[in-house]
């Protein structure tokens, strides 16, 4: 049954650029399989969104991505909209030179001292120009390992910035502004943030401020706390999560959408993702291994190439090597999410999780404790 988005507690119905239909729910855990209808198409969740920061999925063309079944991916506002004219100046380096004020994030160019202000309004303006189906609020995000009053300040400011972003959005009928829940690793702050942000009329929520240097134990507790307080009928996007185990666990904890640079980045180092972990293809052990990366994988790389050939190519300076592994790793992530989703729809998600863990870790005893506990907390036992 279709669920129209954006009926708020304030009683007003906002224009909907997003519809979430819950197709199936796990009877034990908080996992759900949904259909997310967006202006440019429909996306099945749970979904992994590959990251194409600068408007490109590294060496993979849009056509290749499409052929892999990828229906949604990420671009970065700041990289695409804020690149200063002094060429060669990478945006990432600007963060070290940034200053957060109530106005926004202020960057100062080390080349000519010019200042750029990224305010909530500016951020939304850029995203409106980019025309993405989903846009993110500008949040005041601090490192997850930080403690003290700065965390609380950032949480409250993020709420204020959310409101400013909502006001600034010129295209709510075509673009969906997501809130980003902050609060660091403090349950009280998280809850406060959830309480406030869920009062706002946004079509979706992201769980932010995690996937930094925090321990996995703290991490999963914040995730599950967040999904407990987020509405059922709106998508939950957990930012920065991409390792296979983390994906499986966080689906169990109720998350629908994920993004991470890991699969594509690790590919460029010659690391191929497989159900048992990863293969460092540049290593000597693969020199005469004439099997594909994964016999069960349907991606173009595995259909045509062997580990031995990729090993040779990775030791050359032909960038095609990187693209082969990138294609495979994206396919791996998408196939994983697909398998997760199918198991939810077929009411066998807990069994899927058990098999996944066994394949990845050999025995339950080798599965990291945090994952065991997180799964336990939602009724999935591994023994």
């Amino acid at each position, binding site marked *: 049954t279709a669920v129209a988005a954006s009926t708020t507690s304030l009683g007003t119905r906002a224009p909907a650029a997003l519809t979430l239909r819950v197709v199936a729910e796990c009877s034990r855990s908080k996992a759900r399989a949904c259909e997310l209808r967006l202006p440019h198409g429909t996306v099945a969740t749970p979904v992994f969104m590959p990251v194409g920061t*600068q*408007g*490109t*999925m*590294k*060496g*993979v*063309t*849009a*056509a*290749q991505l499409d*052929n892999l079944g990828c229906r949604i991916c990420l671009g970065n506002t700041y*990289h695409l909209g804020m*690149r200063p*004219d*002094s*060429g*060669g100046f990478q945006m990432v380096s600007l963060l070290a030179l940034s200053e957060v004020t109530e106005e926004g994030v202020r960057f100062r160019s080390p*080349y000519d001292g010019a200042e750029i202000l990224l305010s909530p309004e500016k951020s939304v303006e850029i995203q409106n120009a980019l025309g993405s189906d989903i846009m993110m609020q500008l949040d005041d995000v601090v490192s997850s390992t930080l403690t003290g009053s700065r965390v609380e300040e950032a949480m409250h400011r993020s709420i204020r910035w959310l409101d400013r972003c909502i006001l600034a959005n010129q295209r709510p009928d075509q673009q969906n502004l997501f809130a980003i829940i902050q609060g660091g690793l403090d349950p009280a702050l998280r809850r406060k943030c959830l309480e406030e942000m869920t009062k706002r009329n946004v079509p979706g929520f992201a769980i932010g401020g995690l996937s930094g240097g925090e321990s996995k134990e703290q991490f999963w507790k914040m995730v599950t706390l967040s999904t407990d307080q987020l509405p059922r009928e709106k998508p939950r996007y957990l930012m920065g999560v991409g390792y296979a185990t983390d994906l499986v666990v966080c689906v169990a904890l109720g998350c629908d959408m994920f993004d991470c640079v890991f699969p594509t980045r690790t590919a460029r180092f010659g690391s191929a993702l497989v159900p048992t972990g990863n293969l460092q293809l540049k290593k000597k052990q693969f*020199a*005469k291994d*004439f099997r594909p990366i994964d016999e069960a994988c349907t991606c*173009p*790389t595995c259909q*045509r*190439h*062997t580990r*031995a*050939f990729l090993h*040779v*190519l990775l*030791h*050359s*300076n*032909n*960038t*095609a*090597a*990187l*693209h*082969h592994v990138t*294609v495979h790793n994206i396919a791996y992530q998408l196939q994983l999410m697909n398998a997760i989703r199918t198991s939810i729809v077929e009411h066998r998600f807990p069994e899927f999780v058990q098999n996944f863990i066994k394949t990845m870790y050999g025995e339950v005893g080798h599965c990291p404790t945090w994952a065991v506990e997180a799964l336990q907390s939602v009724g999935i036992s591994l023994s």
Partner: protein
Amino acid sequence: MKLSLSRVVQGCRLGTLSNLGKKGDRCMEFPGCLLYTRTGSAPHLTHDTLQVISGVPAMTQLTLSSLAEHYEILEEYKEGIGKFIGMPESVFYCSLHDPVNPCPAGFVTNKSVSVWGVGGRLEMTVAKFMAIQQALQPDWLQCLSDGEALCADASSSKRAKKSVDRTLAFLDECLKLQEQSEVLRSCVMIGVIEGGDILEERLRSARETAKRPVGGFLLDGFHGDAMTKETRLRLISSVTAELPENKPRLICGIGQPDEVLECIEAGVDLFESFFPYQATERGCALTFSFDYEPNPEDMVLQQNGQKEGEENGEHIDKIITTKCVPETSFEINLKEKMYRDDFGPLVGGCSCYCCKNHSRAYVHHLLVTNELLAGVLLMMHNFQHYFGFFHAIREALRKDRLGQLKELIYRQAC
């Protein structure tokens, strides 16, 4: 392998090579080029992105320099290089060296030739060379040869003579070994014409090599600045005059469009396609026109493209990086600031993936941000453009329009 010559126009041969490949079912038109690869793969391209390019040649060039060091792996693999690299459908020519990365000179002896791979220098005697080829199993292979006649500062006729003597000796030894191997007997040996810039030696090399049971000829040592253009073309013509009509003539190291045409006129049939790769590496898109019969609309489009370039060329480059100058007049440098907001395709009317889906501005952005996709898209365009050029040459020969094509190309040469 069969060569059918359909016509010869002003020295240019037009024809088809058929019965190519292990199954003898592939064919290739000439004048033409081979697909350039690096370590067994088209640069930047996977099978999917290579597939999308129009006019990919039936024959692929592999370089021994990039593959020789892996021959133990290939020996164990047993199924040959084509299958190993994931191109089982292609026909392969294995050259000794990579036209883009010249080897250090001074390592050729009477007994061996060296190539440089990732792991360093690999010295090959005839026996080793043929053992490697046995593992690779290419369809055509460049015989072991001494290509260093002009490497020293002063060209000497002694060195030229040596290059011919050595190369013929290598050829005879390789042919002997080929006879003894069932696998190698199905490969075509390409004899190499050496002799530096000494006419006598070139003629001797051509005549002697032609006496041997080779399947084709490689004209080596005509690239670079070692001789003047006039000398080069004179020598090439003299050489091809000595060669049988029914066997293909390849040349290495020649890629620029004007030079390609000149060599075709001098009797060469097949070229490499490293030139589009070099353009890609400098962030350039091949834009030279080979449309010698443009329709009036296209003329306007092309003129507009040029006009914009002229206007913005005056801008002082504010980018702090060094100003990039295109290597040749056959291309544009997408790093230049003028392309930042140019939303047209790389080349108006081009049907390649990049031109159909993306703009100059996007490729500029990719280059400025050092993104891998820049190389992918530029390689797709540059290969398609270059293959299109060879198609146009064949068409011009078929329709007797060579003069118009020549005039168009030479007009664009600087």
